[in-house]
């Protein structure tokens, strides 16, 4: 790619665009925004490819670009409007009671998530939902793996307290 190889770049796009999209969506919460962002991030990665060290894995380096751009995009969006938080997806619960219970659970989990730092929220999502390892998340966020595990530990304790309270 550094020498202008189209096929090599296409291979990188194919391999990383889906996961890049998922990360962007986790941060932005909107499909169109996440699509645009992953496109821009791929081109930004191409423009910055000289700064990439060939011996290292491309994924974390690229996902870091996605995360940084997604945070910036979200900040810009928050400045433009006070909208946000995608509408709760319609739950197909069998009964109104169950529906109400789930809605309450979501509301309280959302509150618990809000009490976390932005980095902790992202770490929990990347670890629990996207299946990244602590080391991969550390690479993406450019922090130490121990810091990721510590943040994950604290975030999970807060969220588990909430879940324990809810279900215990």
């Amino acid at each position, binding site marked *: 790619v550094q020498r202008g190889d189209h096929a090599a770049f296409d291979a990188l796009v194919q391999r990383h665009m*889906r996961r890049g999209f998922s990360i962007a969506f986790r941060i932005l919460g909107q499909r169109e925004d996440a699509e645009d962002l992953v496109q821009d991030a791929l081109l930004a990665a191409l423009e910055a490819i000289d700064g990439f060290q060939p011996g290292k894995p491309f994924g974390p380096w690229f996902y870091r670009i996605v995360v940084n751009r997604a945070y910036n995009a979200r900040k810009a969006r928050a400045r433009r409007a006070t909208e946000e938080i995608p509408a709760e997806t319609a739950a197909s619960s069998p009964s109104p009671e169950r529906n109400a219970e789930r809605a309450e659970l979501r509301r309280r989990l959302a509150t618990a998530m809000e009490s976390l730092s932005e980095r902790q929220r992202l770490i929990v999502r990347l670890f629990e939902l996207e299946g990244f390892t602590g080391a991969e998340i550390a690479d993406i966020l450019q922090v130490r793996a121990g810091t990721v595990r510590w943040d994950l530990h604290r975030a999970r304790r807060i969220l*588990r307290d909430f879940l324990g309270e809810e279900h215990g």
Partner: protein
Amino acid sequence: MSDAIEHDRDPARDSVLAAALADLDPEPPTDAVDWDRLERTVALRAREHLAGRSPGAAWWELVAAWARPAIPLGVAAGIVLFLVVLRLPARPAEPPEPLLLGDEVAESVYRGDPGLLLRAAFTSEDPIP
């Protein structure tokens, strides 16, 4: 589930927490994305940039390209040279010892009669009596 932190390895994934988070966060709608279109768009936008990255080979690229076959060839040539050197005599050949002629033969040569010398040369007869 253990609540202790292990600094040197990841904790196990928490399926209860993951399920609750998945319920809170809508799953990324990967099925709704037209990946082919996205890929084409990216490729199209990247084309110009990639074209600008391959302006022909610079001298160091030529050197790098030649270095790949040149290195094993050089090694092979070195091995051949080594074997050739190994087969050469260890010391330069010493000059043959001077032929010592017997007095009788020497005198016959001085007399202008090489018969004895020739006979010695073409037979196993030792010219040195």
